[in-house]
């Protein structure tokens, strides 16, 4: 039964239905409503038995989750942006120890400059942390992915982060279906740890591993993520059979039959992209969309198969690698190795800049007309950039770039009083 609720609330209620034993809460926009929602559910006894721990930092949040998981409890936390970076050391520790923690990341830009709005730079910065990364297109999918995430994590002993676009999804109010508790219990069995701190069977966890064994331990982490490539579609299929809707999986295609140009993207932008592609298809243009759900592990074969038929591939990204260009693009290009295709990277929506249908229409028009270069920053204001570059060229003490640009836009007062 669907209720008109905020995306964050939907996630909170779904996570509660997954029966976590320990929820670690530290506030950071735009995920805070998730942990607030869970706090109420624990305090009123709706979610029990569960310990809701208000921690003193995101580093503490992940650390509390590590301790809880190692002691045999199902552990959960949520974060975004700067918070994800603050727990970076602990992220690697969780995956390195093989603890099946599930975490929601409400994707938010990484500063400086400080920015609370949506892009993928936070999760992208942790793409090598050993965590599985699943990106939701919609709030319903985000909720559903949490169920699948707990099951996947606990089967493989790999932590999973479920990414959903901050504000765009978390703060959208729409009709959402929180899965029924009985159905969740049937889908997600109680946590049976592969390793646990137990006085009846004492063991040491977290030993130092030297050159003689480190490679093998790390290889197993690599191998487990390859296992995930197999399990993710299987778990998604089981979910579909039980809950009657498609959520998750490695990727999904939209109108790719006969598509000569395909745009690959992740997250909420897929909605706008599909609307744009519908318009073009109505005009007879053979354009399609690949929505990537599993970014880590990266489904090389599935991506190659989905994109292989197109002559032109555009990767639309919500982050970029300074000094290089696209991040997702790099993996897509690897998937397309040996295939002669026109390849484009379009970086869009940084720091919450809306990605509009008009902009996507123009991007596709450029692509179809052969005007799209290999790397484009969508909706970049070249004039603003030129002005700052000129300022830097003229004065050594040109001042902080962000403030200069904001002043040019008129957001801050122009110069000292």
């Amino acid at each position, binding site marked *: 039964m669907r209720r008109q609720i905020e995306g964050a609330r939907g996630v909170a209620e779904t996570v509660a239905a997954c029966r976590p*034993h*320990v929820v*670690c809460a530290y506030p950071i926009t735009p995920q805070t409503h998730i942990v607030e929602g869970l706090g109420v559910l624990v305090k009123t006894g709706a979610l029990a*038995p*569960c*310990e809701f*721990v*208000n*921690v*003193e*930092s995101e*580093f*503490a949040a992940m*650390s*509390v*989750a*590590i*301790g*809880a*998981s*190692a*002691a*045999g*409890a199902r*552990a959960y936390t949520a974060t975004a942006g700067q918070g994800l970076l603050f727990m970076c*050391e*602990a992220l690697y*520790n969780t995956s390195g*120890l093989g603890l099946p923690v599930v975490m929601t990341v409400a994707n938010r830009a990484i500063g400086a400059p400080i920015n609370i709005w949506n892009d993928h730079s936070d999760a992208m910065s942790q793409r090598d942390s050993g965590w599985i990364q699943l990106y939701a297109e919609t709030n319903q999918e985000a909720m559903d992915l949490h169920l699948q995430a707990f099951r996947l994590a606990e089967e493989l002993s790999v932590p999973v982060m479920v990414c959903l676009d901050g504000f765009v999804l978390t703060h959208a109010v729409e009709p959402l279906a929180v899965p029924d508790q009985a159905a969740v219990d049937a889908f997600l069995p109680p946590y049976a740890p592969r390793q646990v*701190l*137990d*006085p009846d*069977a*004492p*063991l*040491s*966890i*977290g*030993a*130092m*591993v*030297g050159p*003689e*064994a480190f490679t093998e331990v790390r290889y197993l982490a690599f191998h487990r993520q390859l296992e995930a490539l197999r399990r993710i579609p299987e778990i998604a299929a089981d979910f579909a059979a039980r809950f009657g809707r498609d959520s998750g999986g490695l990727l999904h295609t939209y109108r790719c039959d006969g598509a000569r140009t395909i745009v690959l993207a992740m997250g909420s932008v897929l909605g706008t992209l599909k609307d744009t592609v519908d318009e073009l298809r109505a005009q007879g243009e053979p354009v399609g969309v690949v929505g990537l759900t599993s970014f880590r592990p990266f489904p090389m074969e599935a991506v190659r198969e989905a994109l292989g038929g197109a002559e032109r591939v555009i990767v639309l990204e919500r982050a970029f690698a300074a000094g290089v260009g696209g991040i997702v693009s790099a993996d897509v290009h690897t998937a397309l190795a040996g295939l002669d295709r026109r390849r484009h990277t379009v970086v869009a929506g940084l720091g919450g800049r809306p990605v509009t249908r008009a902009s996507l229409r123009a991007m596709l028009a450029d692509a179809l007309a052969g005007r799209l270069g290999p790397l484009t920053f969508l909706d970049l204001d070249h004039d603003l950039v030129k002005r700052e570059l000129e300022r830097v060229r003229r004065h050594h003490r040109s001042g902080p770039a962000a403030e200069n640009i904001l002043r040019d836009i008129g957001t801050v007062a122009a110069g000292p009083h």
Partner: protein
Amino acid sequence: METQEIRYFQVGSRAVGNRLLDPGRRTAQADPERANALTCGHRACQGCGEALGARYVVDAALRASAGRLVAVNATGCLEVFSTPYPESSWQLPWLHSLFGNAPAVATGVAAALRATGRDDIRVLAQGGDGGTVDIGFGCLSGMFERDDDVLYICYDNEAYMNTGVQRSGATPPAARTMTTQAVGDEPGNPFGQGKNLPLIAMAHGIGYVATATVADLRDLEYKVTKAMGKRGARYLHVLVPCPLGWGSAPGLTLQVARLATQTGLFPVFEAERGEVTSATRIRRHAPVEEYLRLQKRYAHLFSPERLDGVIGKLQDQADRNIARFGLLDGDDAGPSAGPGATVTTGPAATRDEEIR
């Protein structure tokens, strides 16, 4: 702690204590059924105060919890020398995560045990001074503030020893470390306000805070046992000399620790909810110089020339501690009024001299 009067006649021996006591009053270490949680084969240095302290602490905690205990360890000497892959010295469930998160990880373990109906199992967290006073400070404060059910032990050897003796927030003034070398106008660690973790723990108002050293192992066991009898956040700060880092002879670890207390530099006390509840009186008041001379980390105070000003400032610090905690109050000739002391009769003064 209850005391028992015994008669001890053997002069020149250190084998005093347990075998003369009622079995019920003996230490956990005297018990052949002891857990031996930190078993032999670890790689600690000869004379390591931390290895000694940890063995006493964890076995006492295991006895107090009837074997139902989980330990969380920060990165540091104890963690490194006890778990050289593929071996482990630990004979209890033991988790090492990161350097700065032992208090938070322990909080997580305690939360998990409570949520899964197993909070008969107790949680012990261990870290060195670096992991406690510096990098783990935020997490420790959070654990205190929430009053999480964790007993946190800080093994204080007054520097980052495992990485080669670098200064920490717990390094005493004038001490030589690799990042506060004995050169320049102010050789060794500068004089600052210090960072007194036991007092900071008291300021958090938690239910039990105590200091101890490896010089008085019965007192250490007593305090661990007492702490285990309580719930909520508890903190025990144990001074553990490091022969390598302090430049002291491995065989003098206990003596150096004892001098730290007998000079007043390291006050031994207990506190509950922010109030000091007991302080162990100094039995034989020693000048700080007696303590400093045993450690090469203070060698620059005596050679090539005496830095009387610095020695004087350290003496002032010791005297302030004595005044603050009343460490010389009361009748000097009588037995110590503090807890954890075995009452003995006999030529105590002579025995102390002979130990020296």
